[in-house]
């Protein structure tokens, strides 16, 4: 795990390009999937916050999964959901304290951010770099 997805709400212009990028990256059967990233109201004027999975160190979703469908990918640091193992019991959807495991109604499956396997499309398409995927040392320095 070398990189981290950094969210900077002050740079966000609320264009929802990240949601589109996510939907189309995770499309299946010719239909776009439900976006795993959400552009939400930050509660102040001209303030938008993109919310997506925080890839917690002690993840409630992984603890809640009784069939072991959720595992951390040690290379990317992302917690990935194995669709072949998932039994759609909704435990992770209910357990995540940030609401970032969700039900994709179109494809009838539970989905969550997997950092696109190490190259998140949302960050690639973000026009203002409000979303940025960069090495951890750099991410910590800039944030501090």
């Amino acid at each position, binding site marked *: 795990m070398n990189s981290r997805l950094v969210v*900077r709400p*002050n740079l966000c212009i609320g264009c929802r390009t990240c949601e589109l990028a996510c939907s189309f990256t995770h499309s299946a059967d010719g239909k776009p999937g439900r976006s795993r990233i959400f552009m939400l109201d930050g509660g102040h004027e001209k303030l938008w916050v993109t*919310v997506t999975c925080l890839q917690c160190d002690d993840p409630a979703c992984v603890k809640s999964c009784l*069939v072991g469908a959720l595992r951390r990918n040690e290379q990317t640091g992302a917690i990935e959901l194995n669709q*072949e193992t998932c039994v759609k019991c909704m435990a992770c959807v209910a357990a995540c304290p940030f*609401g970032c495991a969700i039900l994709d109604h179109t494809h009838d499956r539970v989905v969550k951010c997997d950092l696109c396997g190490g190259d998140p499309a949302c960050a690639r398409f973000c026009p203002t770099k409000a979303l940025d995927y960069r090495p951890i040392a750099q991410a910590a320095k800039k944030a501090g």
Partner: protein
Amino acid sequence: MATVTIQVNGRAVRAEKGEMLLAVLRREKIDIPATCNHEAVEAFGACRLCTVEITRDEWKGWKNYVTSCLYPVEAGLIVRTHSDTVIELRRTLLDLQLARHPRTPLIQQMAAEYGVLKTSYEEAPDGDDCILCALCTRVCDAMGFRAISTVGRGHGKRVAPPLDQPPPDCVGCLACAQICPTGFITYKEFGAGREIWGKQFQMVTCTRCGAPTITREFADNLAARREIPREYFDVCDACHRAELAGTMGRIAQWNREEAAR
């Protein structure tokens, strides 16, 4: 784990020693029919449809037919997945399945793929959609509830809760209904409630918006068994996200004001 090489339909394929043959074949994108296989549970060998032909050089032409879901891979294995005999075996199995479940779309479709459009046996007049794959009971066991089980033997075998009463150990997670390949297991949902196996459940409703999430029994069970704070379950996913956006918004606004100063 050691990597071994086996031969599948004349092609060399790498696999981990000891992993089940079906997993290897599926990874190689070979279409093997199976109705009782799911990654959430251990292989069971109920449907027998994943049967393949195996042999080895030292067997001098002798062959064996095994369910690939239960056969551990070892070096030197020679596999044929669609030999004439294998196809005939699968066709017979599907013919029998179609006799017992003549109106089940999954069975009709799988049988049609193997050229069985109508069963050659007598159709069961009361054929239901339960193909006895036991995925429901196995997933219930795997999740640690053990609320349902197969009961009876032979013709009378079926899936049921203990004594056909509402199962005390069921938490209403619906995993059995979701995993059922034929949709035989049904449930009802009404407002903030749910009913499955004759047992009624109250849902946890979001304290912010009132949306139902999972059953109270399931939330209590997860909180106790997996050490997840119970209050995580009190808010729905959408309200959790809004809450996180609000928190991050407050920090961002504070940053803005600091920068302006």
